[in-house]
């Protein structure tokens, strides 16, 4: 028996024993990208831009499919290091109080990647690659853990804004709607945990860390918010939707006032939390 057959067989047995969210979705054999909305029109990167009026509905629907593939890809690309980071913290010194929930968190993030990945691989044949690169750096005591969980909150708050609205959008393709619903149901708990943990870690350390460290954290997280949003404007999705001038589209979409308002609105809860706690000292330039 080949390794491929073995993994298929073992996956079937595991799926039978442990009912996973991915198995609660009715997956069609194939989908036609231009046949439905896969991203809510008002949440697409072309909302409020000249492309919204210049492109016909079929093309916009097709783009909505690739915007969904990009949204699911960036979630996978965000959840991979998250799983890695959570794993590293399991049974680590000083993390005992988090242990019971870390197991659930880790388990649920893995399950998210299953349904995001299945959509991407089954219907587009790929997951868009992660273009973020981490540089090795040094941290003061407690800073690495704090930044890890603070970035998780930022990433998940933004994604959850999309999840909530898209789970409720009756015009969305049923698979896309269900994926957003399933993700939101878990993320709501992850965010409650994440916000509380970030707050506690910051309260513990803010009087210990130097002004320079605190300023560095604020600058870093403000830049991270902008970088997180940039991923939503992936030129590859415009190209895959058959649109030329993908970089011009990205630039116009990013600079469009309506899109800036969308980013501010979608990030407002997150920004308010980080401002109120004093973790960031100004609004990000979204």
């Amino acid at each position, binding site marked *: 028996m080949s390794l491929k057959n073995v993994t298929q067989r073992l996956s079937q047995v595991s799926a039978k024993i442990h009912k996973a969210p991915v198995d609660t979705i009715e997956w069609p054999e194939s989908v036609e990208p231009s046949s439905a909305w896969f991203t809510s029109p008002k949440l697409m990167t072309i909302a409020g831009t000249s492309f919204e009026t210049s492109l016909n509905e079929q093309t916009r629907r097709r783009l909505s499919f690739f915007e969904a593939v990009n949204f699911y890809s960036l979630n996978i690309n965000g959840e991979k290091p998250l799983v890695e980071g959570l794993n590293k913290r399991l049974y680590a010194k000083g993390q005992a109080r988090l242990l019971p929930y870390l197991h659930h968190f880790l388990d649920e993030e893995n399950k998210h990647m299953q349904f995001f990945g299945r959509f991407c691989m089954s219907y587009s044949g790929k997951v868009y*690659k992660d*273009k973020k*690169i981490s*540089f090795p750096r040094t941290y003061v005591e407690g800073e690495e853990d704090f930044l890890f969980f603070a970035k998780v909150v930022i990433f998940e708050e933004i994604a959850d804004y999309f999840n909530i609205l898209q789970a409720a959008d009756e015009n969305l393709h049923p698979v896309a709607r269900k994926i957003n619903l399933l993700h939101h149901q878990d993320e709501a708990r992850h965010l409650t945990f994440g916000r509380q943990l970030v707050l506690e870690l910051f309260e513990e350390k803010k009087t210990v860390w130097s002004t320079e460290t605190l300023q560095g954290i604020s600058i870093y997280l403000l*830049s*991270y918010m*902008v*970088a997180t949003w940039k*991923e939503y404007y992936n*030129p590859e999705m415009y190209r895959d939707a058959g649109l030329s001038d993908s970089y011009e589209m990205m630039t116009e979409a990013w600079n469009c006032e309506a899109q800036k308002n969308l980013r501010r609105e979608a990030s407002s809860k997150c920004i308010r939390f980080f401002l109120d706690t004093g973790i960031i000292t100004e609004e990000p330039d979204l």
Partner: protein
Amino acid sequence: MSDQDVKAKLKKWIIGKNPTTDLSALSDSTPLITQKLITSVQMLDFILFMESIGANEFDPETLTPQSFATIDTIYQNFFA
């Protein structure tokens, strides 16, 4: 686009991202990462910019901070 044009565009992007730093001496061999002229959170933006000015196709999974050490390194790795 000539190599000088590409390098000039790369320099312009870096200068634009560091408005409070005096970069009049920025050269093709200035260490960009160690001098924090490009930070990890700017990398996605920088990669998108490189692609928009005609960088060769590359696999993001193979990239390391060293791939972006200097303007010369970036040119050699992504445009030559």
